[in-house]
């Protein structure tokens, strides 16, 4: 009577998840590149999150800019000043918020669209799948950047526009991957059993397919973030971003417009350029590590 009651199914599930997370982390830790990428990301994430405390939003004020325009690096301004006389180090830190936010949101949007289309196309087959896959193919062959530029041009200039432009143009790869995985999952016998027991479309897709494609989706998200950050920087650099919002790509655009390239004001160009490259690289390293851990076939090969 007083013996311990066996844990309920919910608790069991949580315990199982805890175990697999620990197992995942154990394997992830063995990949040095992945750990390095993660460390860099944590660092940048902390910098971005604490920016209101460290540099404050005043850093982007043009009327209260502390320095003279385009000062070279000095004790007061470690990375020099921009064309308004604002300190570039502060702008770089503040810009990390927008660049990371846009990268994350655009990647989430892109992967969500891709996952929904991939799962439904894999599940329903038939005419619906054919149509969806042709649409996917169409987006796949369209040059992403050109499409994003066209979208960003016709819509008003804001962060939402940029996120949308990147999100709706980069999802086809995810859709293809997820559909392939869905097909593989749905051919397993237990799906047939679930159907026989009366499982509807929604049940199959949300309870059986989704958990199985989730690792793939996660890995894909990490990888897409880095290209989304690059895409955001590109669009901002091409002058399609909101000029009043500070982002790394926007800083590059400002630098170009101010003529910093030909006049050799490197401090205006190099830091945002390096920041973009480093963060994109870090996300890629993480994504690769996650992918390798979650996909045992890749793990053995290396």
């Amino acid at each position: 009577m007083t013996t311990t009651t066996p844990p309920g199914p919910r608790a069991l599930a949580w315990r199982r998840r805890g175990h697999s997370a620990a197992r995942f982390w154990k394997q992830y830790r063995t990949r040095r590149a992945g750990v390095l990428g993660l460390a860099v990301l944590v660092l940048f994430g902390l910098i971005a999150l604490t920016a209101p405390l460290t540099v404050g939003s005043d850093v982007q004020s043009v009327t209260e800019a502390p320095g003279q325009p385009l000062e070279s690096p000095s004790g007061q301004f470690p990375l020099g000043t921009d064309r308004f006389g604002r300190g570039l180090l502060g702008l770089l830190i503040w810009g990390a918020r927008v660049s990371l936010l846009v990268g994350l949101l655009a990647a989430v949007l892109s992967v969500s669209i891709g996952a929904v289309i991939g799962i439904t196309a894999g599940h329903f087959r038939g005419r619906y799948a054919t149509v969806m896959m042709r649409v996917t193919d169409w987006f796949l062959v369209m040059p992403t950047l050109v499409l994003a530029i066209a979208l960003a041009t016709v819509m008003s200039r804001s962060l939402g526009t940029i996120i949308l432009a990147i999100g709706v143009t980069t999802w086809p790869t995810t859709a293809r991957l997820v559909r392939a995985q869905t097909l593989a999952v749905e051919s397993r016998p237990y799906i047939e059993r679930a159907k026989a027991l009366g499982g509807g479309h929604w049940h199959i897709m949300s309870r059986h397919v989704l958990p199985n494609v989730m690792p793939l989706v996660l890995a894909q998200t990490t990888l897409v973030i880095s290209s989304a950050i690059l895409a955001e920087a590109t669009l901002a650099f091409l002058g399609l971003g909101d000029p009043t919002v500070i982002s790394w790509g926007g800083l590059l655009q400002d630098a170009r417009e101010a003529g910093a390239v030909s006049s050799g004001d490197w401090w205006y160009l190099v830091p945002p350029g390096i920041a973009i490259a480093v963060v994109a690289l870090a996300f890629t390293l993480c994504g690769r590590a996650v992918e390798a851990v979650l996909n045992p076939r890749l793990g053995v090969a290396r």
Partner: protein
Amino acid sequence: MSTQVHGRGLSGPTRSRRRMPATVAVGAALVLSAATATPLDPAPRQAAAADGAKVLTVAVAQSVDSLSPFLASRLLSTSVHRLMYEYLTNYDPKDSRAIPGLATKWESSPDKLTWAYTIRSNSKWSDGQQATAEDAAWTFNKMMTDEGAATANGSFVSNFEKVTAPSPTELVVRLKKPQATMTALDVPIVPKHVWEKVRDFSKFNNDKSFPVVGNGPFVLTGYKADSYVRLKANKSFWRGSPKFDELVFRYYKDQDAAVAALRKGEVSFVAGSPSLTPAQASALKNADDIKVNDAPGRRFYALATNPGARARNGQKFGDGDPSLLDERVRHALFMAVDRETIIDKVFQGHAVQGEGYIPPRFSPYFWKPSAGQELAYDPAKAAQLLDQAGYRTNSAGKRLGKDGKPISYRVLCHATDPNDKAVGQYLQEWWSKLGIGVTLDCLDNVSDPWLAGTYDLAFDGWSVNPDPDFVLSIHTCAALPATPKDVGATDNFICDKRYDELYARQLAEYDPVKRAAIVKQAESRLYDLGYMNVMAYPNAVEAYRTDQIKSIQTMPSAAGNIYGQDGYWSWWSAVPADSGGSSDSSSSTGVVIGGIVAAVVLVGAGVFFVMRRRAGADDRE
């Protein structure tokens, strides 16, 4: 050719000023290296071509709209027409007064309605025929009778009753009403025997067969859209042959690339339209063999307010904010604009603080508000004015419109103009202190919302001619579009009876001093209306290689600009340097640093792409 709109007018020549290379590769990192690609071009071209001809290459940031003098309105095109064709009169490079061009003498009848011009007999077309009064009469008559031919300069002849050529050296113009601009008719005179074969003037662009027959200091010999315009010296030009053998305007989308080309000696001159940025100017000042010409400009840079767009038939359109119809609101907005900061920070001294409508360079017409009239920077008074006008702040500090919603203005800005964006950011902060929100609407092509009147405020600017008639005419009621569907000559739909009266009076006044006084009254009226708030007169900042150009005429000769003059003086007078151009300036720090940046970033991008490609390979398995 009166307009020479530069920046922001309706014919919007800036539209293509800096279109971005849309094909650039994947990441900003790669784009960055693309931007530095030009400085790394290993083969600088010299000023002298292989056959020893002296070539003057000018980098311009504007493309040609049309090479037909009847259609062209952009600064580059009208400058080229100045070189190809003679006008009746020209402007003195020293003080911009009217001097003989194709006409040697002119006089008006006592009733002010008949003007007689004596046409010179020593000007020949480049195909050998004599240029006569008959050519001039034909040109004007064509513009009066053919609507297609009146596209660009029709405003000059709308008041003409009859133009005749009694003899090859006599041209007589009969007017309907007195017109003060008769010695400033910026209309290129074209050869009748060539142009009478043209069928449709609204479509003919004069760019098919070369060389194009003309009688100016240069003859057009080649043109490629968005690439170059090539001209050859006219050795038999009546004022004397130009010193350079060839003149090439080469189109650079990116001003920084043009500057790099100048450093390499690939071009001899970088046009200051748009001006070089302060950073470019100060870097070029320290470069060898390069002279930076920083001269007071012909332009004004203003903040235009939508006065409620309407057509001549009284129909209203557009959706300008109703609060802007209150003069106090317009004044308050401008009183919160610190022009000094704009000069210091945005233009970094390469501009003069804005006052009246016409830049100080045109001293006879320059007008300045009196101390009592001036809308000086005073944010406290601005807030007071808004309170008086009934626009009060709510608890959150936002000013509410009459509909009870917070006021937020859309400011139309040119995505291609860095100054617009910079000033826009200042406006945003200044006006937010008044409790007014600002959305910067930066577009590549501002013409559509502009013509439709769907803006609240807009950055505006025009190049002013020595004769101010045109820039004044664009604010009259007569310039409004006939119906909302039409396009009028109006700048931003201003229509004011008192201003119109003053405009008509100055046009009919032949005495220069009296006319100037009326023009100043018109400027004063315009200032009080608060629809056109001039923030600055930007300098023309341009640069050239002293080892390729020995000397060149500025206009006005003391502290004047070179590109975009009212006349052909600069290119006609340019003297080539003996050396024939430098071939090496590779150690410029900008190039080296640009190279390092490109390399660093390329390596980063390279690693990234290798990873991506591997990822792709794995996905495929």
